[in-house]
């Protein structure tokens, strides 16, 4: 019964300090963070962290910053409840506990040579942004870059300014659509799938690697539309969301059939989850 070697406890957060806090669309904010001690966190696009607000609780939030700048750990959070409210309310200088990075990543480097198609719904743009940055940083490595982004209304378009700068690049296609317009909106109206045919026009579907994140129902319809357009499901990637308490595969909450979304996901290749996505209440 020799004493086992002490193992670092994956349940214990590391402390970070907010270096910048920025309001986004209503109820949503982005924070940049630096560790109190130790090296900055390196991560892969699509991974997430568990963010702990002192005394309030801990929630999973995707990393939304540039993977090439790990010193600027970035999270974009929407206030939907107790913990997210505390995180959205953080100010420069505040402290936060973080565990991570967790989960699988968008296989963005492996997609070099292909046409990267990002399809986001609502806040689903946040977990895609690190992968978009990667393609923008290495644009010559990719055959194409297209972003199709849908939100409920013009007021709910996340990172709107940044999207305009992407749109102004000649090597980037951006299609933005809203479910419900407001007076003055001159852009496209309709759910994300209605913007797809235009976005895909002129692109050989066999060259596309699609990365999709948004509400599950939006992802289901998008995947159907992609399949109809000839994009094969082993070149489509989705990010899933479930209740999770530990991100380590211990708490059991995020199970999705045989997978733990926290460690086997959140990013899955569509063909590996397609049958399960069709089952209700799985």
């Amino acid at each position, binding site marked *: 019964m020799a004493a086992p070697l002490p193992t670092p406890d994956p*349940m*214990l957060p590391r402390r970070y*300090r907010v270096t910048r806090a920025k309001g986004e669309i209503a109820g949503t904010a982005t924070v940049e963070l630096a560790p109190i001690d130790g090296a900055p966190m390196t991560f892969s696009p699509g991974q997430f962290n568990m963010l702990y607000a002192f005394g309030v609780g801990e929630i999973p939030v995707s990393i939304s910053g540039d993977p090439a700048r790990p010193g600027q750990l970035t999270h974009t959070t929407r206030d939907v409840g107790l913990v997210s409210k505390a995180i959205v309310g953080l100010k420069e200088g505040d402290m936060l506990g973080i565990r991570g990075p967790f989960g699988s990543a968008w296989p963005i480097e492996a997609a070099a040579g292909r046409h990267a198609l990002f399809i986001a719904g609502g806040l689903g743009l946040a977990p895609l942004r690190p992968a978009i940055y990667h393609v923008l940083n290495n644009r010559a490595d990719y055959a194409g870059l297209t972003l199709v982004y849908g939100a409920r209304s013009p007021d709910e378009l996340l990172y709107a300014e940044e999207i305009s700068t992407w749109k102004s690049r000649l090597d980037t296609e951006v299609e933005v659509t809203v479910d419900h317009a407001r007076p003055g909106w001159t852009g496209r109206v309709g759910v994300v799938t209605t913007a797809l045919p235009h976005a895909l026009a002129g692109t050989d579907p066999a060259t596309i690697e699609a990365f999709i994140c948004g509400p599950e129902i939006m992802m289901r319809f998008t995947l159907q539309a992609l399949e109809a357009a000839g994009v094969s499901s082993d070149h489509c990637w989705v990010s899933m969301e479930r209740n999770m308490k530990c991100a380590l595969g211990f*708490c059991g909450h995020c199970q999705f059939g*045989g997978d733990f979304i926290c460690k086997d996901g959140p990013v899955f290749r569509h063909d590996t989850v397609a049958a399960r996505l069709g089952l209700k209440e799985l």
Partner: protein
Amino acid sequence: MTRAPLHLPDPTLLLAALLAEGIRVIGPAPVQGAIAYEPLDRPEDLPKGLSDSQSPGHYRLAETAPGRWFDYVVGPQSWKKWLFPARQKLWSAERTADGFELGQPDEPWPRTAFFGVRPCEIAAMEIQDRVFDNGSFTDPGYARRRAGTLIVSVNCARAAETCFCASTATGPRAEAGYDLALTELATGTGLLLEIGSDEGARIAATLALAPATPAQIAEAKATSAATARAQTRAMPEAIAGTLKANPEHPQWEDVAARCLGCANCTLACPTCFCTDVEDVTDLSGDHAERWRSWDSCFSIDFTYVHGGAVRRSGKSRYRQWMTHKLSAWHDQFGSSGCTGCGRCIAWCPVGIDIVAEAHALSAPDPSLPAPAPHEEA
């Protein structure tokens, strides 16, 4: 050191030897009419003359021949209560001038022996070992407690009506996973003591026991074989594939109509591992703690995400529990999550029987066309 089986006249001799070494011994104790696992402070604390009667929705302690030591089988608790406590402080945090500081509780785990571990319970621990060291992450507290615990097992000389370990290949005799293993021989003739580790051999040596005779060894084997034959329930062998292929089987509605969603089965199950966390602060708000406690997939909040729970119907929650246990577990951890211990059967207030449900779910779904002859299940 010899690993040949020995003859132990009386299990309290072994218990006394462990206690004499200052080892904390946790073993069976009748508590509120059921066998629980509690510290045994004196050799005479080991119960004697007890058996049990178990059936769906039913558990009673019973008396047996006064000379018998281990005729009862598993009760509502399992060793997970000790290795994976129902409520556990993960860490605490103190507010400071510029943020907070984190600290972890010092959890003493004295040198411990689990005394009277059944073969299905060894299997359960080995299953939880794979849960809490899953290839990506290790729960250090669990690992430390597990490594600091000796296993003294008991091969069952009697099965309850709810037992089906023979069909899940997790009992009624343990071939490995113990430091010392006991098999009770005919009443009053002592026990066979088998040695499974160097530490077990060292402790056995302190007892200066006689080697077991070939007849005693043969008797122990025959006892285990008879216990296996006595089991009336059997888990269908193909159940993992059957459940995966039948998420919409009408039997799920049938069982959901009976299930109360009380979570007894998940609490009693020695392999269920789901937890919730709770963040608490004191009145000043300057001291915060994070606690982890057992949770159950039968609770509706279990799958809560913004907007509502994913598994709202009782059907989806029962399906999750059983499909996880018997099917998805193979994908996750390389084995079934069921040890055939029967606890969920005995402790279900409405007597839902996982084996009976497994058989019902193995019957063809009448709403589906009959499978082609060579189609895979």
